[in-house]
Structures are given as structure tokens and as C-alpha cells.
């Protein structure tokens, strides 16, 4: 997708800019624990574009086995590490999680630092954390308030999608944000590159540059300088086409299961998660649909369909349901029912 980046370890972007929680777990601070969901804080693109066919029908990505020449379902796909001889070693999610079970579940804040001390080189990506359930609300607000007053950032490492992340957790305007940081061995030293640092600066030349700097000096960062002009131009083309009705097609109805992934703007998803009381009845789970999908589980009356995905995840965690971190909502419900929860 993003050819320009050689980071290679960003979390897989969701097709067409949809938004999903990337990780569900908890933040621990002493004996305090709060369940959170993690979302990107940066739009992958300001105006995400979907891939469509020539008749403007949206496309999805499917995995195919080149040998069998057919599409594979999710449970037919495994992760493999390629050895030097081209053979693959298959590694399961459960195995990856069991390598660091605590870190897979919690961001444990054991250290707090002055964020200004962290060199810009370390910062990698930005995420927002939202309280996963109502009970987490108060602990979330307490932690955010405390961190904001102290002006400190919590440092921790945790495991997400089979990879360890170093994060700085910050509070800003009552919202918790995680900035992933590079590990020191991901940063090169100028010496590794062989840069000449020996050059002498000619005082007259320094003076010329000093004058140039002063001529361009400003006290603050003007956000408009950080605008991406392409976005503005793209928006104008889109608005013009909409106004004229050219190249416009009605999109097919969203699949119920697509839920929040279909909400286009990250901002809307975050607002809904941060202030659920503001949320209008979500179109994603109409009551009638719930009844229709209830697979014959009338006796239990467990009402699992009405639970949020993170609530289901927490239950699955409590019951130690294997492979839960990769499950979608329906899969979690099925697994919980068979686990008797």
C-alpha cells in the first residue's frame, strides 16, 4: 500500500480508511487497571479513497492459494516465518501471545518521564486510547487528569499483533494518547552512515545564515504551513463532481457486520467511544437484527449480541478462550457460547 514507507511494521491499514480498534487490553498503574481500546490517532489519509471496479463497485481483498486456485477463509490461513532454505515455520497467535502473556494484555505504567526529554527521532506513530467499558470511565479520567497535571508521560512496553512496542502514554485535554517510540537499536548513529562531521564553519558564512534565519523567524508553528495541499485540491474535485452528479454512484448498503469499520471518519468513531452517552442509537446493531441473528440460544438469555466487542473480549479473556485476539464479534460470541460463558 504505502510504498514510501520502509518502516514495514505499521499496523496493517484497513481498506479504504475504515476504522477499527487495533488492540484491546488494559492499562495498569499500580494496582489500578482499566480496560481500553486502541485506535490510530492519525488518519492514514485525510480523504481515504476506496478501490472500486470500472462500474464503481467497491472491491474487497481476499486471500487466494495459488496452488489450489481458490479463495481461503480466515481459519485456513496461518502465519509463517521463512527460513533461509525457503521452508516456513508456522507460528500461531496463541504461541505468540504466550511468549509474553502479560505484555499482550496490559500496558503497565512503571515509569513516568518528561516528554520533552524524548528525542523526536524516537517518535513513530500515534494512537488514542478510549475506555472500553463504563466501569473504566472513572479510572480513565483519574489517570488522564493526574498525568495532565503532572505533565509527565508514562513509559511502557506492550505486545500488539505479534510485535513489541515501546510507548509513551500522554494525556491531553482529558484524552489518553499513546505514541509508539522506536527502540534504540532501530535508530542509526551518524557514525554508522559515515557522515563527515568534521567541517569547520566559516564565521562569515554563519553570520549570513543567521540573518536568513532571523528573516524567517516566527514564534509559533503556523498549522497552515503543515497543510497537505493535495487534500484541498482533491476535496474540490470531489465536491464539484457531487454537485454536477458526474462519476457518482450510490454505494451498496453497508453490511451490518462491518459496523464501525464503515464509519469513514476516525474522529466520529473516537467521539462515540469517548462519550458513549452522546451516542445516538447506533445503526450498527438494530434490535431486530439481534433477534434474527440469535442462533437459537433462547435458554441462556445471555444477550451476548448486545455486548460491545471489547466486553466480549474481556469475557473471552477471563475464560481463557484461545485465539480471541483475532476474533471478530460473531466469532467471539460463538466461542463464548461454546465455552459456556
Amino acid at each position: 500500500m504505502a510504498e514510501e514507507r520502509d518502516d514495514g511494521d505499521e499496523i496493517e491499514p484497513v481498506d479504504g480508511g475504515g476504522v477499527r480498534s487495533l488492540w484491546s487490553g488494559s492499562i495498569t498503574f499500580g494496582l489500578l487497571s482499566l480496560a481500553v481500546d486502541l485506535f490510530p490517532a492519525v488518519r492514514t489519509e485525510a480523504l481515504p479513497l476506496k478501490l472500486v471496479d470500472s462500474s464503481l463497485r467497491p472491491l474487497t481483498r481476499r486471500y487466494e492459494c495459488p496452488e489450489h486456485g481458490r479463495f481461503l477463509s480466515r481459519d485456513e490461513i496461518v502465519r509463517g516465518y521463512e527460513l533461509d532454505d525457503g521452508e516456513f515455520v508456522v507460528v500461531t497467535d496463541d504461541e505468540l501471545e504466550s511468549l509474553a502473556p502479560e505484555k499482550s494484555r496490559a500496558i503497565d505504567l512503571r515509569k513516568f518521564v518528561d516528554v520533552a526529554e524524548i528525542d523526536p527521532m524516537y517518535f513513530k506513530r500515534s494512537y488514542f486510547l478510549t475506555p472500553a467499558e463504563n466501569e473504566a470511565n472513572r479510572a480513565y479520567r483519574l489517570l488522564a487528569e493526574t498525568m495532565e497535571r503532572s505533565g509527565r508521560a508514562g513509559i511502557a512496553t506492550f505486545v500488539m499483533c505479534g510485535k513489541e512496542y515501546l510507548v509513551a502514554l500522554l494525556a491531553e485535554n482529558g484524552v489518553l494518547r499513546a505514541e509508539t517510540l522506536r527502540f534504540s537499536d532501530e535508530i542509526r548513529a551518524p557514525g554508522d552512515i559515515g557522515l563527515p562531521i568534521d567541517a569547520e564553519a566559516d564565521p562569515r558564512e554563519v553570520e549570513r545564515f543567521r540573518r536568513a534565519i532571523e528573516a524567517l523567524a516566527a514564534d509559533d508553528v503556523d498549522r497552515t504551513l503543515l497543510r497537505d495541499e493535495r487534500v484541498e485540491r482533491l476535496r474540490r474535485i470531489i465536491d464539484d463532481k457531487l454537485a454536477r452528479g458526474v462519476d457518482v454512484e450510490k454505494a451498496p448498503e453497508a453490511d451490518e457486520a462491518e459496523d464501525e469499520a464503515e464509519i469513514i471518519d476516525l474522529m466520529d468513531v473516537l467521539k462515540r467511544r469517548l462519550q458513549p452517552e452522546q451516542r445516538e442509537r447506533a445503526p450498527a446493531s438494530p434490535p431486530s437484527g439481534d433477534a434474527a441473528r440469535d442462533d437459537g440460544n433462547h435458554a441462556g438469555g445471555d444477550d451476548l449480541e448486545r455486548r460491545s466487542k471489547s466486553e466480549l473480549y474481556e469475557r473471552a479473556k477471563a475464560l481463557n478462550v484461545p485465539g480471541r485476539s483475532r476474533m471478530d464479534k460473531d466469532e467471539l460470541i460463538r466461542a463464548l457460547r461454546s465455552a459456556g460463558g
Partner: protein
Amino acid sequence: MAARAMWKGVLRMQDERVPVKLYSAVQDRSVHFRLLHDEDRVPVRQRLVEPESERVVEYFETLRAFLTPERDLVALRPDELDALAPEPSRDIEVLRFVPTGAIDHRWYERPYFLGPDGNSGALAALVAAMQETRREGIVRWVMRKKAYRGALRAAGDGVPMLVTLRSAEEVIVASELGAPRGKPLDEREIAMAQQLLSILEAPFDAEQYKDEYRERVLGLVRAKAEGKTVRRVPARRQRIEPDLAKALRLSLEAERKRA
């Protein structure tokens, strides 16, 4: 051992020009996995599919479309997208110089070292002038058909750097989101939490953190390749206190004992 430069450009400010080379300041160290078909362990191939007809669409046949909140799809033709590509240029234009630190961590994306392209005197003079004035530049350039915004700064050891910055459209400002609401917090609880936080305060030391997990993943892979069985480590049961005030009091007691 000298690394290869990944791009060459010319810093421009007022009438000054400084030819530079860009070198990546970071390296990828992550363990990469491939997705395989369970049955035959063959790497899978991604296909684009129109879900209704199940028809496979080749990449070159695809168009881009924007989906509005009203669920209208607006198609963008390849020539329209091509026309949006910025003009190629070697110029790295310095727009402003702001006090060091004015550009905060929300904007940082990816760092590059700068080296001189030819005569190194001009770059050394620019670095010295930035250090004396304690300022860093906000710059703009086009690299490989893409427009970038960046911070031009002298690192602690005087090495010039360019850090690409996220765009204003990409960054979501926390103040626009609205914080979770609820009953007012208990000031005593905040005070306890602040005490706990201050006990855990320390300087930031990057060297202290190692990606141990990466080693464990590679260890797991090696063990499995040799046909060894891998013992699962069960999670430690972490002690959690659901009552906020009690949790804080007990945590404080524990930390004081440790200190």
C-alpha cells in the same frame, strides 16, 4: 562504512542554497511473517474481488473512489489523480524558523540525517547558525512524487536532521474530541495518584528498553524448526483492586516499601 544516500536535494532559504543528501536515520528490525495456506504452506496471494459477483479485478483495472457519509461513491479518474501529483523538484524550501521545541511530538514521523552534497562548509555554517539562534526550520519538499513537510534541526551532537511531519489534515487534535465525562473526580484520589506517579518519575533512558519479544519470537521459530516442542508460559495472575481509592492507597504503600 558509508551508507547510500536515499535522495539529494537543495535547502533554500532567502538567497542561500545548501546542497544536501538524505540518509535514513532509522532501520527496520521487526520480524516479518508471511500468510500461508494452512494445508500446503504456500504463501497466499491477495486478490481484489467484487464481492457480489466474486469477480477478480486486476489492479490496473481499478479506479479510486471517495465514499461520502451519504454513501455516494465519487470516482476519481487516473488522469485526475495524476494531475494532483506535485511538480518534481530538488528544492527543500525553508518556510519559517521557529524556536527549538515549538514543533511537538504529535507531528513527528520519520527522521533523516543530512549530509553535505559536495562542499560541506555551507551545511556546517547553517547548523552553527541554527544552534546559536536555537531555532529549527519548517520545510517543504517533493520526493518521489510526494509532497513532504519537515522539521530541519540540529541534533544534540550537531548533526543536521530532517524529520518528516504529519500533515495538519492527518493529525486529530485531542481538544476536538471531547474527553469522557462523569461525576467529578475525588481530589483525594487525584492527590494519591499524583504521589504514586511522582514515585515512578525518572529520566528517559532509551537504552533501558530492549525489544526482548523479538528475540523470543526468533527463539520460538528456531525451536520449532528443530522440531522441539515449546512450553507455554501461563500468564501471571495480576492483582487488580477494583476499588479506586483502595487501589491507590495499596499501590502507594507498596511503592514506598520498595523505595
